[in-house]
């Protein structure tokens, strides 16, 4: 039995001190005063040298937010959040005006985050690093890195510009492409959409902006790494992606945060717009700090993500691997407006220890022959609570619409929970909606079979869980699939004893 005890101890050590991304970077920071009021909103807007219309837009959102109430319908529990007890703006003091000025500490952070070396070099502004084709025929990845409130550097910008692609911090896009930002910002997620979206609209600090021109297939993966570093800060990033007619893009975001005893708020808004024949693939690997084994600390991840498939035959595919955060509350959705448009949602959500996740998607079928596919894999371990909440709504005009939903839950141990809450509103006679759901446990004979072939208990669990999630993981860009698999396994360490 010695080996089991040792393994458990080793895993506990990992769990207790072990969130691998839990380091903190020592960088001089520039803070706005704590708390939230109109002056803070003005401060943020001024810091970003924003045009008057955007300040007005923010203030309108703020005033609306004041009239709203914290939503209570999700199956998550947390103490009330004191919105006055947080910083709404934190930026590295050394302004990242050019790539060479990037603080070396920051680059160390990226190294620890596992951002590929090549991209680090680019982020560090190594001359010409972004121009040469990458080694081994690997697909290059353009990276935008958001550190607390500020986008620090964007790589491959010039290379992308050759195709007319804009990939930059949203604060920069406000300066360089104000007409695009003004046209699309809030057009998918209006300021008053929900409590956290309103908050975000008032105080959003940075995030990525992508515009793919007509007919352009983006030649590389676009990627953003979000990181909350400073204490008592919230992160409110705003991402806006516009795929013009006939264009195509694949975008990936990754997230981490240091370990802290307090809960930190992350309330992002992501808006996607796909015009005729455009296609957007949006992948998320979310690994915010989940809190310790007793449930202390961790990120509250309250995110609004929505895509508008405005054009005919447009397509948006959401893929998410959610392993982190103390609480996850997010429903990446698709408004299928254009005829024959397609929405997809592939999700893996893991809750271990005391994590809670209430996640799913909403598919609004508005155009004719619109199609949607939902594949959700929920894994609960420890005391984790995992809820799939989904809505498929088919309007009377959406003749011939189709939806297929599959929700599978995997339970590890007997203290955790899995819940499936599918809402279906079909108001069209010719539409077809299918829903399948399963709940299972890792079987003892599967574990024994793996172990009898030399796999450790942890490797066996990792392998079985990865198998369970395969349909979702295969949707991830190749470069990140391996990383995501490792993440799943790490997240579940210590869950089987």
């Amino acid at each position, binding site marked *: 039995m*010695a080996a089991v005890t040792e393994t458990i101890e080793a895993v506990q050590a990992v769990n207790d001190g072990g969130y691998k991304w839990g380091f903190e970077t020592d960088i001089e920071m520039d803070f706005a005063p704590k708390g939230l009021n109109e002056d803070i909103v003005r401060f943020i807007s001024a810091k970003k040298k924003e045009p008057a219309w955007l300040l007005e837009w923010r203030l309108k959102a703020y005033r609306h937010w004041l009239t709203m109430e914290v939503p209570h319908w999700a199956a998550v529990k947390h103490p009330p959040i004191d919105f006055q007890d947080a910083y709404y703006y934190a930026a590295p003091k050394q302004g990242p005006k050019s790539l060479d000025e990037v603080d070396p500490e920051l680059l160390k952070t990226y190294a620890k985050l596992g951002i590929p070396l090549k991209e680090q070099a680019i982020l560090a502004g190594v001359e010409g690093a972004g121009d040469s084709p990458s080694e081994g025929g690997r697909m290059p990845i353009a990276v935008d890195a958001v550190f607390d409130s500020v986008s620090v550097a964007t790589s491959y910008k010039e290379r992308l510009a050759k195709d007319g692609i804009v990939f930059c911090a949203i604060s920069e896009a406000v300066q360089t492409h104000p007409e695009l930002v003004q046209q699309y910002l809030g057009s998918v997620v209006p300021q008053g959409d929900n409590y956290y979206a309103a908050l975000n609209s008032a105080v959003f600090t940075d995030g990525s902006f992508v515009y793919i021109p007509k007919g352009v297939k983006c030649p590389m993966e676009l990627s953003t790494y979000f990181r909350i570093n400073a204490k008592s800060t919230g992160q409110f990033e705003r991402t806006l992606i516009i795929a013009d007619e006939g264009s195509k893009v694949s975008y990936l975001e990754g997230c981490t945060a240091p370990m802290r005893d307090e809960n930190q708020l992350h309330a992002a808004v992501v808006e996607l717009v796909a015009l005729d024949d455009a296609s957007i693939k949006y992948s998320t690997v979310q690994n915010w700090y989940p809190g310790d084994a007793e449930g202390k600390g961790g990120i509250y991840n309250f995110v609004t993500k929505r895509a508008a498939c405005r054009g005919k035959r447009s397509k948006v595919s959401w893929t998410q691997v959610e392993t982190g955060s103390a609480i996850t509350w997010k429903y990446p959705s698709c408004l299928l407006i254009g005829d024959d448009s397609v929405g997809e949602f592939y999700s893996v959500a893991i809750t271990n220890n005391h994590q809670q996740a209430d996640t799913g998607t909403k598919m609004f079928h508005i155009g004719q022959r619109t199609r949607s596919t939902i594949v959700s894999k929920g894994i609960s371990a420890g005391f984790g609570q995992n809820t799939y909440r989904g809505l498929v709504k088919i309007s009377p005009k959406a003749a011939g619409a189709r939806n297929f939903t599959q929700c599978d839950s995997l339970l590890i141990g007997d203290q955790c929970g899995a819940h499936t809450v599918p809402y279906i509103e079909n108001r069209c006679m010719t539409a077809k909606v299918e829903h399948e759901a399963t709940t299972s446990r890792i079987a003892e004979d599967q574990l*024994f*079979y*793996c172990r009898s*072939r030399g*796999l*450790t*208990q942890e490797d066996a669990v990792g*392998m079985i869980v990865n198998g369970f999630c*395969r349909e979702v993981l295969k949707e991830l860009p190749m470069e990140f699939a391996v990383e995501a698999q490792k993440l799943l396994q790490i997240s579940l360490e210590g869950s089987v004893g």
Partner: protein
Amino acid sequence: MLKIENLHATVDGKQILNGLNLTIPAGEIHAIMGPNGSGKSTLSYVLAGRDGYEVTEGSVTLGDIDLLAMEPEERAVAGVFLAFQAPVELPGVGNANFLRTALNAVRRAKGEAEIDAIQFLKLARARMKVLNMPDDMLKRPVNVGFSGGEKKRNEMLQMALLSPKLALLDETDSGLDIDALKLVADTVNSLRGPAFSALVITHYQRLLTHIVPDRVHVLSAGRIVKSGGPELAEELEASGYGAIQAAAA
């Protein structure tokens, strides 16, 4: 050498093995036959270390190592391989990935370098050809949707790649067609050597005409009640277990 002495084991509090003694010298292949429910699979699980199979008395050593003190995965990398009577399905887990992970676990334990995906495919394909398995079985999830015979062949593929010191084959011949039976026998025979021993559990003498065992043992009510040479299997085929069981009682 595998040495089992006075082995007693319970499952869910029920006594299944009752003082079993068995020695298989290195390089030898022994067969175990016995009526349904006599404890053959239980013996194989106890040897492989399955949870819930509790040893209440006795010892098992392989060479100079005490198997009973080890976890299943430690036994596996030390060279114990169990070909399951009913191989388990692992949905979504690619066969190639599973096999390579297992092989690398064993190689690491032996101090050998891990092999990469390309080397692995070469090795696996060569073995699969011999076992008459189509290449696409590497891509499919482990045992999912495999026919009974395909599952058994997949077990043989694993065994051949992991090349264990001690192979336990639990009714690998059940449900196999005549050609597949020969392939299984060929695989076992190809591993024969001074460092390989095997315990072949079977109900049918036919397998033993292809894998000629050094010894045949009869298990009844959790104990070995009779041992002999290959001719014992023929006797059993002709007369059944009745006489032996009566004599042992």
